[in-house]
């Protein structure tokens, strides 16, 4: 419907805008009209702000040290001094939850960026060059995808005991295949289009066609893939950390906070509820934003 309304007289201002900008303007307009996506976007921003600037403020306000262990404060139920209670060694759960969020969000963001970069580069090369490059890539993808991803993750985390940094690299190297497949498919249809032919007729080298003509056309699917991927990486990271194979304590993540709580769940369900809610809310926000962006950036799908 957006296409019809944008042809109406009220949108004549678009006429002098270059075509590429027009596309992004329309996308932004579609997002602004989509209330659910806006709410989810707001959710992501609030979560990031809470985790980035929340902890120091809270520490000041409540006079808490996140790493201070206190035997006398073990398993305190929620109270004014510790709004979400304390864990098995007396650390404040709220502050740890926010610090854990920092780690989880950072891994998800950086991991997603890296995953998508690998996927886009390989998909672009395979789709553009075709031939043996494509054959090799398809072979690698089908091989990677035939191993249940958790088994593979278990092996690599056993061999390279992960710090947050190595974990990012490991999940990226194992998770790029879906993006590569997506990008490859898109490039296969893009490279047959007239603007590619025109560029080639003007003597543009391959790298230039790929970077300045094909890559900008891939941005819509790249942005969507980035968001959806960040959401699923939160789940993967928390799952691994929960099993004790991801980020190691005492660095808190939502996953390993649950490991701790699981061993003592009879002591306090409040230790289990919150990390899970944080994970679900974060994944939900990313998921909804990705879904909304897909609708906004790819009007053909509607």
């Amino acid at each position: 419907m957006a296409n019809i309304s944008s042809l109406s007289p009220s949108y004549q201002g678009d006429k002098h805008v270059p075509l590429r900008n027009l596309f992004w303007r329309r996308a932004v307009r579609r997002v602004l009209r989509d209330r659910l996506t806006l709410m989810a976007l707001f959710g992501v921003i609030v979560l990031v702000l809470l985790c980035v600037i929340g902890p120091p403020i809270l520490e000041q306000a409540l006079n808490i040290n996140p790493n201070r262990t206190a035997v006398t404060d073990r398993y305190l139920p929620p109270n004014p001094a510790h709004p979400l209670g304390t864990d098995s060694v007396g650390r404040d759960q709220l502050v740890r939850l926010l610090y854990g969020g920092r780690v989880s969000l950072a891994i998800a963001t950086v991991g997603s960026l890296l995953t998508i970069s690998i996927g886009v580069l390989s998909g672009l090369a395979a789709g553009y060059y075709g031939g043996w490059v494509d054959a090799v890539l398809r072979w690698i993808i089908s091989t990677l995808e035939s191993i249940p991803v958790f088994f593979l993750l278990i092996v690599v985390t056993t061999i390279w005991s992960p710090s947050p940094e190595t974990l990012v690299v490991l999940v990226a190297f194992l998770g790029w295949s879906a993006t590569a497949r997506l990008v490859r498919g898109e490039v296969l249809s893009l490279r047959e289009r007239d603007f590619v032919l025109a560029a080639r007729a003007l003597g543009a080298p391959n790298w230039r066609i790929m970077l300045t003509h094909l890559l900008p056309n891939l941005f819509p699917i790249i942005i969507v893939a980035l968001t959806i991927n960040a959401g699923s990486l939160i789940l993967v990271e928390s799952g691994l950390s929960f099993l004790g194979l991801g980020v190691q304590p005492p660095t808190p993540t939502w996953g390993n906070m649950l490991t701790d709580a699981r061993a003592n769940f009879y002591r306090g369900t409040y230790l289990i509820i919150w990390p899970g809610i944080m994970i679900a809310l974060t994944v939900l926000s990313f998921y909804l934003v990705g879904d909304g962006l897909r609708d906004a950036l790819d009007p053909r799908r509607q």
Partner: protein
Amino acid sequence: MYLLVMRRLVVAIPTLFGITIISYLLVLAAPGDPVSMLAFNPRATPEGMEQQRRLLGLDQPPLTQYLYWLIGNDFTQIDVDADGTPDVQGVRRGLLRGDLGESLTYKRPVLDLIVERIPATLRITLPSFLIVYGLGTLIGLLSAVNHNGWFDQTARLLSVLGTVVPSFWLALILIIVFSVQLGWLPLTGMRDVTSSGEISLLEMLPYMVLPIVVLSFGGIASLIRYVRASALEVIGQDYVRTAHSKGLRNQTVWGRHVIRNALMPVATFIGPSLSGMLSGAVIIETIFSWPGMGRLSIQAALARDYPLVMGFVLVGAVLYIIGLLISDILYGFLDPRVRLT
């Protein structure tokens, strides 16, 4: 049909080859080799360890080692004492003949350890699989029939929840509610496969409920979305409109034209969803102390039992490829066009 199966098997060969390469690279990346563990044995001498290395072919160049790892070295004579004359027959049988090495913690062949855990894993994955496909297709189809109605909205909410709620957290919550608070179901833990005595299905059932529920919940979410989208696409096709306009009853249109065509892409989903289920089982089995493959893989990982962990990659991949084959055959049944080409 026979041709179809044969062709799929041939197509699987390069993938299997790729899997052996990845696994072998991981074997190389893992610290130490089977013999270096002997260093903890006070009676092991450096010379003895060297002999053992030569016997296993670990002194060979990487490519030869890969071949030994793949097909074994029992067809070669080995010069164990390095005096220039070969004197012993090799002992390794190689991956292709089921020799995945020996577990460091259990001191038993890796393949045996994994295979004896498969039944326990199937006991929770198979029912989940049936629930996911039975209930998932039903809800997905009803959701498409009821497009944008209340049932559709509820189903979509359910599928979003199944995607975003981490399974291990759901499992913990269910344990707290049903096992701790209400006391309806046992807490965790089935008897180990290694323990003696048969356990009857009836006795096992209460232990199976929660793992199956949690495992199904995640799988059903993506299937509902998939079936729904597929059915909605079919409804928009011209042949469905034709069927309606030539006066067929609604049930006939759905039964003969929509459902069959909508379910065809679903058959291709079986392979990936099997893989997802095996991954899910790792977490579920660990939480519920279920004596299957998944829990063993985590125990092996935490104990740094490299050969055993590596075995799971291979067994998991083989299971996945079997699943893919089944889904291809099913696709052939549903879509005659695939059979004929």
